């Protein structure tokens, strides 16, 4: 076995051009696979983050004809102890209203939060570009678009007309920009007490929102939660049910990315296979003479398996390095005007290790047929033919 390894190494060293070519082939394959994989994963992670990063992943809403959740504090407590995947739990009192400004009106959505809790989901603090968060009753913040449309300044009061006909005035303490124009245009974010009072909810809320660490497990977490909650007349929704088209888009993207990766690997596999097969023919003299000298068929075939293995390992290592170089160029040269990469790259060590190991095992697999040819080679053929 060690002799097979030694011979394999010597064969590879003596055919330097061929060895380098095949290593280059494997490296390019691994690099492309790594690059595409990281790109697609980065793209998806960034898409997911943009789409649902600052929104509720799982939402408990009233059901069975109810319009509010009375027992929300218990529900919130139960959610908190139910599943370690769940983070950032926030209750919301929500209702629609109309803002009255300069002889004009516009529909708005009143969102009453415990601001500290909601900030963990919506990042109001980061999005606040002027003023401060609402603290006291009858204070509120509004989005950039709504502020511009209504000409509101910090410390101004806005007038809201509720569906009940009641009119409320809220003091604006700041403006936020959540980078989603529909939110910037319609949300009036206030304290939970203010919203409960305005919408006549007493001490009820209309939603309990939360995020999960594993976003793709949100449906399972939601199901478990629905099963475990002791609070009646509620329903548990999750983002996956509400974003089917996004999910199928992501799925399609993943599948096409896998397809590309598989075909790249197949091409690499065929390359290794053909070069090794040629190498068996080229070395048939040597194999024949080794057999005449008494090398066993198994050891003769191991020579080619070792060649495949060594080519795979070196090719994979170079491929990973080359892949990182490609990614580095991509993140440094394909950038937005502000210098951030167009697609943030997602470096997944597990994926890279897997891709490397896959290349090695493909190389070994590709060497099996040449190894078999070598094992079958009859020394007499070589000796007869001179």
């Amino acid at each position: 076995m060690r002799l097979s390894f030694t011979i394999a190494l010597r064969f590879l060293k003596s055919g330097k051009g061929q060895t380098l070519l095949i290593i280059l082939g494997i490296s390019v394959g691994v690099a492309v696979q790594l690059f595409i994989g990281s790109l697609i994963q980065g793209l998806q992670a960034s898409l997911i983050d943009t789409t649902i990063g600052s929104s509720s992943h799982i939402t408990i809403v009233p059901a069975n004809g109810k319009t509010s959740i009375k027992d929300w504090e218990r529900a919130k407590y139960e959610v908190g102890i139910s599943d370690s995947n769940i983070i950032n739990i926030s209750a919301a009192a929500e209702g629609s209203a109309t803002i009255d400004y300069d002889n004009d009106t516009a529909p708005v959505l009143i969102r009453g939060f415990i601001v500290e809790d909601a900030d963990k989901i919506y990042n109001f603090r980061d999005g606040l570009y002027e003023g401060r968060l609402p603290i006291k009753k009858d204070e509120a913040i509004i989005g950039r678009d709504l502020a511009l449309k209504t000409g509101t300044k910090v410390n101004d009061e806005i007038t809201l007309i509720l569906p009940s006909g009641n009119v409320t005035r809220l003091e604006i303490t700041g403006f936020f920009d959540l980078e989603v124009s529909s939110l910037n245009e319609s949300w009036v974010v206030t304290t939970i007490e203010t919203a409960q009072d305005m919408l006549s909810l007493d001490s009820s809320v209309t939603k309990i929102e939360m995020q999960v660490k594993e976003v793709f497990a949100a449906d399972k977490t939601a199901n478990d939660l629905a099963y475990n909650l002791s609070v009646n007349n509620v329903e548990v929704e999750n983002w996956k049910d509400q974003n089917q088209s996004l999910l199928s888009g992501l799925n399609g993207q993943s599948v096409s990315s896998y397809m590309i990766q598989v075909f790249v690997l197949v091409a690499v596999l065929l390359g290794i296979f053909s070069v090794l097969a040629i190498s068996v023919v080229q070395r048939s003299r040597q194999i024949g003479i080794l057999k005449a000298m008494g090398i066993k068929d198994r050891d003769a075939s191991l020579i080619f398996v070792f060649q495949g293995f060594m080519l795979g390992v070196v090719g994979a290592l170079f491929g990973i390095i080359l892949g990182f170089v490609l990614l580095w160029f991509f993140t440094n040269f394909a950038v937005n005007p502000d210098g951030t990469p167009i697609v943030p790259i997602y470096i997944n060590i597990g994926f890279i290790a897997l891709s490397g190991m896959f290349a090695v095992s493909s190389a070994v697999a590709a060497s099996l047929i040449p190894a078999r040819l070598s094992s079958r080679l009859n020394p007499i053929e070589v000796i007869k033919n001179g």
Partner: protein
Amino acid sequence: MADIIELKNINKIYGDKIKTQVLFDINLSFAEHSFNSIIGESGSGKSTMLNIIGTLDKPTSGEVYIDGFRTDTLDKDSLARLRNETMGFIFQFHYLLPEFTAKENVLMPYKIKNFNVPKEVDLWADELLDLVGLTKVKNNLATDMSGGQQQRTAIARALINKPKIILADEPTGNLDSETTETVYSILRSINQKYKTTFVIITHDQRIAEKTDRIVEVKDGRINLDLRK
């Protein structure tokens, strides 16, 4: 003296559809320590006979005994070991491994048996290289040596495992007459020094005449068996 090689009723037929018989009922044996030659025209079947003795080829019918073991019924791995330990081959085309140096080539049959080369075997390899006059070029790659040097390397290689038998197929076939003489005298001295049995195929009348026994093969049959 006991026979180390024995062929009994050997027939060899090539081909499935069109059958060509190259050996007909060969009965032949060679004594231990003897120095023999096989002569015959090309196509007479002499190489086939040597390959059957060397277990590289199998007879269509008949029995082959090497060093007391019947070989025509052995499995491939046992044959490989038998070849490795009992026999040394010298071919017309030296068949060195071009990726390895002269000394590495000489050590190769030993490494097939046992990867770790002990000191005494290493010294033995040097001694053999010295015997064939290659001490100076022992670290050259096989491709960086002349034809005669390569052939002498192949002789040293055939001896590394101290085999009981050396089978040579036209060992001097593509060498000039002076080198031929050198190679022959090396083979002869090995035969005398190590009591190795030699079976040499040659078309060179002068070489054949210097051996102890000349077997002539003609049309797949033994035509002449001349002992001195």
